[in-house]
């Protein structure tokens, strides 16, 4: 399960001055902003190699990696899942993965 849900889909732009609050106060999260479009390289986790150390999760600056509980060889584990809606393709996860389980794939050009 993703731990977050965007509360609106598009950038909120008030249509009329009457809709404005008195000052610039935030009413929504930033999750409308699909920063996946920034990516030119896509990190892909090879779960065959993955050892569930969660280094990738720890270091993702977005965060664009969320966790899902799974069982691996009878043990409770957390599986890192990349949310490509937000992953900017910085490749820190790949760089920090101790077993090099994350590969970079060029986005189509």
């Amino acid at each position, binding site marked *: 399960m993703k731990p977050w849900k965007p509360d609106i889909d598009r950038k909120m732009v008030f249509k009329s001055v009457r809709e*404005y609050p008195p000052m*610039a106060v935030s009413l929504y999260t930033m999750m409308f902003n699909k920063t996946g479009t920034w990516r030119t390289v896509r990190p892909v986790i090879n779960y065959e190699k993955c050892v569930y150390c969660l280094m990738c999760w720890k270091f993702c600056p977005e965060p664009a990696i969320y966790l899902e509980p799974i069982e691996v060889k009878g043990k409770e584990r957390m599986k890192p899942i990349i949310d490509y809606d937000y992953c900017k393709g910085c490749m820190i996860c790949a760089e920090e993965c101790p077993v090099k389980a994350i590969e970079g794939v060029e986005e189509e050009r």
Partner: protein
Amino acid sequence: MRKVLMGNHALSYGATLSRVQVIAAYPITPQTQVVELLSEIVADGKLKAKFIRVESEHSAMAACIGASAAGARAFTATSAQGLALMHEMLHWAVGARTPIVLGNINRAMAPPWTIWTEQNDSLSQRDTGWMQVYCQNNQEVLDSVIQAYKVSERVLLPTMIVLDAFVLSHTYEVVDIPEQEKVDEYLPPYNPPYKLDPDEPHAFGGLTGPDGYFELRYIIEKAMEESREVWRETGKEFGEVFGREYGLTEEYKTGDAEFLIVASATIASTARVAVDVMREKGKKVGLLRIRVIRPFPFDEVRECLKGRKKVLVIDRNVSFGFGGIFYQEVKSAMYNEEHRPPIFGIITGLGGRDVRVEDIMEMVEDVERREKPEDIIWKGVRV
């Protein structure tokens, strides 16, 4: 309770009666007594407030803004250099819509070093969006602080209560101190629509592009416009509760006046005496005191100036390269009116040069003699 108070202490009492919750201030002559007295009142436990002894005025205003955004009633006081050092934060308080009240003791700007009265310090802030109230006596100082919180918190804009250095700040006058219970009835607690609250997390002041900034500024201006009526109401209600009524302006013997003096602050008070003297001599003179310059009292000024033979605006300030600021603004307000009396402007009393009854009478005579107004007429410069 009747008490003899200096203007600075009138500010402190006004703040205390308003039950301010956070005070952040920095000393400067001639404001120091405001802060010293508050500091004692808080230390004595007579006011449940937090006093932050900041390291500069800049931080004073920042702390007030933080406190106000977090839901506390905030107060500060300063003067001249201190007010100028706050300038960026004065803008901030407006954009953040934090209804802070600030007491400013009008002092001339350095250099050269000086501590005497002049309005350039506060009028240099006229474009920041602060409401500004110019007081003519210490009673008004105290009363205005209380009114200011009421208006400010309703329209979410900060207010500056302005008083002349020494002429009010250090002058002891008889002041009636209202009862706390009545003030509590008059002034409800502060409860802004949005505040810093972990239970309802909002970000305040986030980046806003051309698609939204314009509207937010428009809303501020609308609040300013609304505030005119709120000041009027609040001032009337004050009269009902405390027996002293206030408006955006005040008229004295204007009824049949052909010659109208427009003035503010303590010069207006002295001008009142001058009007009496001139009336005795048979001159049809009247006085319009501008109490609130932001929001500008368009209706009151227009209504009062209509049909006069001559108008004289006295300024204890100057916008270099343009002229006296009240003069400038009154003319501007009257421009598109049907009845446009000739308006003369005189600059006087800069840097605390004393303005006496005789001086005002001379100014009136001078203007009576003149045919055409000039951009700047000076009175009192040794030529």
